[in-house]
């Protein structure tokens, strides 16, 4: 019993602590990358106190931010629903924290006893992942509702609409992988990609793209950051949050990004597979994190590139484009898996999927005339 408990802690604590510190690093990374994209420098001022280290590329910035958050006054609106207002940030943290343990991370020090306890070995890990992450919507809406502020409520409503819509393409594109791997066990899915990562098949590539786009929307990342659109509704659902509660939302958001990128790595990018893993099993963990960070880099890169969508565009994109495409992809994948001549799957699959995507985008393009501006000539 005690052994089991110790094993459990040995698995859970590094996950919680490790990803929380990666969160700090990621905020720094995001600010730096965005700054460089805009030809700025980004955070570089904070020094380590009492040392000679002057700048350290601003790596101490997250610590300063954290201290600032902790020291700030916690403001609760007078008319807010106090209990829900308090619970929302906590609840927003719980689902991403929980799903992190569903990722098939092979901790280098894990013994057989610990491995048996890892949730990734569950037979329905992927299903559980989606079940738990959808709780996040509740937290967001709770925050929006409890603040009794029109911007918060608008943000909360947008979040609900968006998250519910994008959940469907997200799950459908993951279903393709489940079909191919023949199960929802995360470790088994990684195992099934030993020969070939699923992203290197036509249906896998399409599913990965759909999954990635939908996961951007699920985690409120730009260009789908409507629930917290600063220029439109201040900060959306967490307008009325300050101090540490705000930090919790922030943390929850980044943990959700880790979780969903981790799932993408599991489903499409071969989990911890990579060069030299056979010789040094400990590398598996490193590869896994490296792939997560590669995805996060693309997310930040997209944030630095694309403007925000409108609400109607957002919903139209999910229902009229991603959903039919991911349904079609199910059939393509089924056909490709049963195909007698596997080499046919690339040309035919790519043609069908690309043709469908073009047709869909054509049929929904609004035939509006180019906008004319009265002042900008």
């Amino acid at each position, binding site marked *: 019993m005690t052994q089991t408990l110790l094993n459990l802690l040995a698995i859970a604590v590094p996950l919680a602590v490790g990803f929380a510190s990666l969160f700090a690093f990621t905020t720094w990374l995001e600010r730096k990358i965005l700054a460089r*994209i805009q030809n700025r420098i980004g955070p570089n001022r904070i020094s380590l106190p009492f040392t000679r280290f002057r700048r350290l590329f601003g790596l101490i910035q997250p610590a300063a931010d954290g201290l600032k958050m902790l020291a700030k006054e916690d403001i609760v609106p007078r008319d807010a629903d106090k209990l829900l207002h308090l619970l929302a940030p906590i609840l927003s943290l719980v689902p991403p924290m929980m799903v992190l343990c569903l990722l098939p991370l092979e901790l280098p020090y894990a013994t057989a006893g610990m491995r048996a306890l890892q949730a990734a070995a569950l037979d329905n890990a992927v299903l559980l992942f989606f079940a738990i992450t959808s709780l996040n919507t509740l937290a967001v809406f709770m925050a929006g509702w409890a603040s009794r502020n029109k911007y918060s409520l608008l943000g909360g409503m947008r979040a609900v609409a968006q998250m519910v819509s994008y959940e469907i393409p997200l799950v459908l594109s993951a279903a393709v992988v489940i079909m191919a791997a023949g199960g929802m066990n995360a470790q088994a899915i990684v195992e099934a990609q030993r020969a070939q990562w699923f992203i290197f098949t036509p249906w896998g590539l399409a599913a990965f793209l759909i999954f990635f786009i939908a996961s951007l929307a699920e985690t409120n990342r730009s260009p789908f950051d409507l629930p917290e659109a600063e220029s439109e509704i201040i900060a959306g659902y967490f307008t009325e949050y300050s101090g540490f509660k705000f930090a919790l939302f922030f943390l929850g958001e980044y943990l959700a990004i880790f979780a969903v990128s981790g799932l993408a790595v599991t489903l499409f990018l071969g989990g911890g597979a990579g060069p030299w893993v056979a010789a040094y099993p400990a590398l598996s963990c490193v590869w896994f994190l490296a792939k997560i960070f590669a995805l996060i880099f693309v997310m930040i890169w997209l944030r630095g590139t694309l403007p925000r969508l409108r609400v109607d565009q957002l919903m139209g994109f999910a229902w009229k484009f991603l959903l039919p495409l991911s349904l079609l992809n199910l059939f393509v994948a089924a056909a490709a898996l049963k195909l007698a001549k596997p080499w046919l799957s690339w040309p035919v699959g790519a043609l069908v999927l690309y043709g469908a995507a073009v047709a869909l985008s054509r049929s929904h393009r609004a035939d509006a005339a180019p906008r004319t501006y009265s002042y900008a000539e």
Partner: protein
Amino acid sequence: MRLLGFGILKGMAVTLENFVRSYFDRDRRHHLFTKEYAWEPGAPAEVLPARADTTVTAHSRNFPILLHDGADPMGGIRCVACQICERECPPQCIYIEKDYDEQGKYIKRPAIFDIDLSVCMSCQICVEVCPFDAIVMDSQFELSTANRFGGLLQHRDQLLKSNEYYHRIHPEEARARDDRMAQEKAEKEAKQAAADAAKKKAAEAKAAAEIAAEKSKPEPSAPTAGGAA
């Protein structure tokens, strides 16, 4: 046919190029706008502010001011109250009323020229559209006051600053503007002179033609000509 998603990839290529080249490239298009530690000893000269009494560089812009030539603000005011800037200002924060003399004649200057600083977004569009070089951007940012609404509405006399002040805050830009204005003025004068000369010539030609006509005219018309004279 355009590839699906091609526009997104193109945009991503641009941002990636910015990202990578911001580390290596030293040319103008990709250099970093931020200069590190500009105010610390040993900072390179080009990052130091133009004036010693401010931390603002010559490139900073915020809130418009009105310019006047010479020492007397209202005597040398360049603004003619044409109200173009009032119409073009995106957030509509400029308010202008024309000035009239006692006879009700428009005397080409504003009686009221207000800018609401709480609305102005320092976009510089008013500067771009003004045909008289009357309005330029300031670099003053220390505008806080002790009360809540004080100083938010800037009136004509607060907005009026001399051309020398403009030269002090944005030297290069002011010089370029002065040069352009001088050139435009010279061109206008040259044109005017040319037009005058042409007019004079035309008048002379006409006079000559008239004299010639007079000479060749038959006698009976002489009384009429005499009457006209």
